[in-house]
């Protein structure tokens, strides 16, 4: 793994991460009027995050059951609206305790 290869990969990653972020907001200066489209756009973040989280989350810790325990804790804390940090750390803590005690 040469340094040149890694740096090139990182630069390419940075470019293809920036382009999708910038293009639409720079190009579309006028607001979209269509209710269909604005509704669609309103729902996208929830769809993206849902699809990214499940089912990936249950493969995220190297143990299916521990991951499920962590997922349930995250769901519970999020339902109680505990905020990003508490939910993330709560899930990590439960998975860690499972690793330690089982």
């Amino acid at each position, binding site marked *: 793994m040469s*340094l040149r*290869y*890694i740096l*090139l*990969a*990182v*630069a*390419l*990653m940075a470019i*293809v991460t*920036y*382009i*999708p*972020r*910038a293009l*639409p*907001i*720079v190009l*579309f*200066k*006028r*607001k*979209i009027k269509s*209710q*269909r*489209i604005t*509704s*669609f*756009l*309103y*729902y*996208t*973040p*929830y*769809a*993206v*995050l*849902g*699809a*990214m*989280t*499940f089912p*990936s*989350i249950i493969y995220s*810790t190297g143990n299916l059951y521990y991951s499920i325990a*962590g*997922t349930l804790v*995250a*769901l519970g804390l*999020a339902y109680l609206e505990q*905020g*990003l*940090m*508490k939910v*993330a750390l709560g899930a*990590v803590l439960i*998975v*860690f305790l499972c*690793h*330690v005690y089982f």
Partner: protein
Amino acid sequence: MAKDNQTSEKNNIKKPIAKENSINDFKQGVKKGLPIAFGYVPVAFAFGLLAVKGGIPVWIAILISMTNLTSAGQFAGVGLIMAQATLFEITLTTFVINIRYMLMSLALAQKVVEKMPRLHRSIMAFGITDETFAVSSLEEREITFPFMMGLITGPYFGWALGTALGAILTNFLPVAVQNSMGIALYAMFIALIIPAAKKSKAVLVVIIVAIAISSAFKWVPFLNKLSQGWVIILATVIASAVGAIFFPRSEERV
């Protein structure tokens, strides 16, 4: 005459107020960004850990976080670098994973002050992440450049700092801790969507549809050949379309 005085007075006052408004907007943004910044630390920590464990130098792990500022794309990209994939494959995969930002960027274009100049747009675009997007789209009013820059600041440094900590502490942490950190990213996503799903049945339906599609493409034979980036895009487009068709939003705000 009196009228003239009024207008000139108005013009005189306008500038300092505008400046004060930008400072206030920036501060407000910073305030809203802090929970994201704290949420990023454990996730970035997990990233730094994974990268260095896989043989990436500490400074490069930090460089990746400071130039990419993205969760899923970085995890995937570093995984591919460790597997010595071709540059083409790395570029294509991270691009596909990041296509979702186009949807967010387009949605934000509806939400920002219409007359924001292109230069400002291109600068703030760097800070669009799943989380900063979710928070800014929940704002009641139009988004200004100072607000967005404030919102981005905390998460940017939280992401870099978390990566640095994870990268440096790798060798001191027991494996159990390292494995446990893997769930942090997803737990954070859950924290972002559940409160909204609680309040809106439409959002809940959209989330369930998206999850059903991504699960199908994970477990159903043949369907599971499609790469994760494409699955996310497909699930997003279908689920959001279902939302738009069955629960069109009547309000003005996006």
